[in-house]
């Protein structure tokens, strides 16, 4: 059994070491793959706040991933065509600046999470899973038929958006940017889990009636968790869109929601680094298994089954055992 914090440190070390190796070995694509893993990890860290801490099994987080993506797509599309997003009630122009795009992604997905959360949290259990799924489908079909922004074809952005002081087209610089954001998000998630809010949310997941008796509103706690969660997943969506320089309704599909959830389960639910380990392993599997056989989904499916059936607590749970009591 390894101590969880050593495993976490090792994971972070891998995220630094592998790209360095890739540069020296002239394998730039490995950096792209690692960027993909980092972006997925951010999305899953976001979901983990709702799922792991709040116990909200959301099968609709693709909504926020997609909204983040479209926030990037739409802003950059207007910037590259020199058209205004809207002229009424006030002029909004497109932009190719990442910080602005991130802000837009976070704001839009938070608002969506607020509305979806208010409606969905009236239900619980299976119904919650299903209503979030339904919201995901709503956005998916809307995006498909939204001809102005490419509908099913999606939107291509020819040049990656810019970040002051960096050349984002250089894979390693963009990777560094994403990794930096992942670290920030992890820091946030870590502080959150030990904060007064985290304590209350944790209790709201396990014994909502107790939280109520303590004078707090468990539903409101969960709603705030859902909004924070959606905002982070939205940020990941914007990064994902920039990684691919492309957005499409696929980002809204329920399979995307499922995949984000898979990252968490693979790594370990409620563990700080669960989503990170899960995303890294998933991207590696996708890459290697995809090269092995046309039918690689079978192997992926079998592996997932084994982990769900026999591996309590995901990969981290298998390696580190039960979660330690934190001080």
């Amino acid at each position, binding site marked *: 059994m390894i101590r969880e914090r050593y495993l976490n440190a090792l994971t972070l070390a891998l995220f630094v070491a592998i790209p360095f190796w890739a540069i020296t070995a002239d*394998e*730039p*694509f*490995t950096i*792209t*793959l690692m960027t*993909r893993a980092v972006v997925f990890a951010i999305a899953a860290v976001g979901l983990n706040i709702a799922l792991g801490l709040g116990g909200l099994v959301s099968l609709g987080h693709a909504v926020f991933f997609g909204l983040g993506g479209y926030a990037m797509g739409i802003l950059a599309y207007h910037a590259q065509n020199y058209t205004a997003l809207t002229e009424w009630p006030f002029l909004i122009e497109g932009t190719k600046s990442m910080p602005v795009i991130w802000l837009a992604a976070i704001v839009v997905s938070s608002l969506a999470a607020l509305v979806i959360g208010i409606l969905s949290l009236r239900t619980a259990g299976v119904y919650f899973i299903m209503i979030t799924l339904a919201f995901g489908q709503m956005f998916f*079909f809307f995006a*498909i*038929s939204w*001809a102005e922004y*490419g*509908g*099913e*074809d*999606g939107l*291509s952005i*020819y*040049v990656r958006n810019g970040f002051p002081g960096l050349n984002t087209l250089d*894979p390693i610089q963009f990777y560094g940017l994403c990794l930096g954001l992942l670290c920030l998000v992890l820091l946030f998630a870590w502080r959150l889990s030990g904060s007064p809010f985290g304590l209350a949310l944790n209790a709201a997941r396990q014994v909502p009636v107790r939280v109520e008796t303590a004078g707090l509103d468990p539903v409101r706690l969960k709603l705030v968790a859902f909004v924070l969660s959606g905002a982070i997943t939205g940020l990941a969506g914007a990064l*994902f869109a920039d990684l*691919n*320089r*492309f957005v*499409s309704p*696929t*980002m809204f599909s329920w399979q995307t929601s499922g995949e984000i959830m898979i990252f968490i389960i693979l790594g370990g639910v409620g563990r700080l680094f669960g989503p990170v380990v899960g995303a890294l392993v998933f991207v590696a599997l996708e890459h290697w298994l*995809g090269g092995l056989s*046309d*039918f*690689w*989904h079978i192997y992926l499916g079998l592996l997932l089954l084994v982990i769900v059936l026999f591996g309590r607590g995901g990969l981290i749970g298998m390696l580190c055992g039960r979660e330690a009591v934190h001080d």
Partner: protein
Amino acid sequence: MKFVTLAAAAALAIGLSSANAEPVKVGMITTLSGGGAGLGIDARDGFMLAVKQAGNKDLEVIVEDDQRKPDVAVQLADKMIQSDKVDVLTGIIWSNLAMAVVPSVTAQGKFYLSPNAGPSALAGKGCNPNYFSVAYQNDNLHEAAGAYAKEAGFKKTFILAPNYPAGKDSLTGFKRYYRGELAGEIYTKLGQTDYAAELAQIRASGADSVFFFLPGGMGISFLKQYADSGIDLPVVGPAFSFDQGILQAVGDAALGVKNTSQWSKDIDNDANKAFVESFKAEYGRLPSLYAAQGFDTANLLLSAMAKADVTDADAFRAALEAADFPSVRGKFSFGPNHHPIQDIYVREVIKEGDVYTNKIVGTALSDHGDAYSDECSM
């Protein structure tokens, strides 16, 4: 370590001795798993057949599965360009994937030869000197269907397509050449499998004919239900719903339907006959439109390789523009925006023994280019 160096040197020596041109590396990104895998597999098989027949050792092909996901396709393109250092990319079936991949590929100075998708955005303002559509511009087959409908004297056609960009382009393409009146115009849900409601509308509309564009499983469902509904109007559509791969699943319901295609297995020329025979011999099935497009794409590439070195982009581009290869379609040349100028035929679905297939019954449009080349400046 020493051994490795020696081996590498030997390999280099062999490489140099067997060819006078630089080897060309091709990355093929296509759909090999999931729902639309049949199309990608056909395109790949057609492409590889031509490569095999040419026996050109300087051509190396890397094939990867995009799972019909745009983000995977983009990632594969990055990998092929960054890691595998490919010179040319090809293989994408779906327009939305092409839109995701092609602009960034050409922006990085690589060539892209499209064996199927030809979205209008890449034919007009978004055209690029390094992008060639070897199949068609997306509107072409629909325009031909419109031309056929005019020719056949249809006065009141009911038209329908899925509610997504290619569907809208399709109806626009049809209307560009059709001169009659429309009995109705419907956009269906993408991926819809039940068309009872649409059939009822067709029945009630007083139409004298039906045009539909419903690729893949949607078309199969529509045709089966159409045949079962008792509506007895002539149907016309682009080749996609009548292709070799899916006709067997439609069965009798498709018999007699007219469809438009730039290729058919009975086009009378030597290249085509040889292609159909060798494809059957190699894979044990009849080739499809996608297989033919893959085959032509590979032969176009091979013809350019014979004329120019891929490292000399301008010369290689000129060699591609010349399109100096025996197309299975017969006459074939590129317009100013690197999209085909070719004949588009009207085919009819027939049954040969136990197998459903198509035969040519006429030509809808001759030497047909596309509507967007004026917008292209290159």
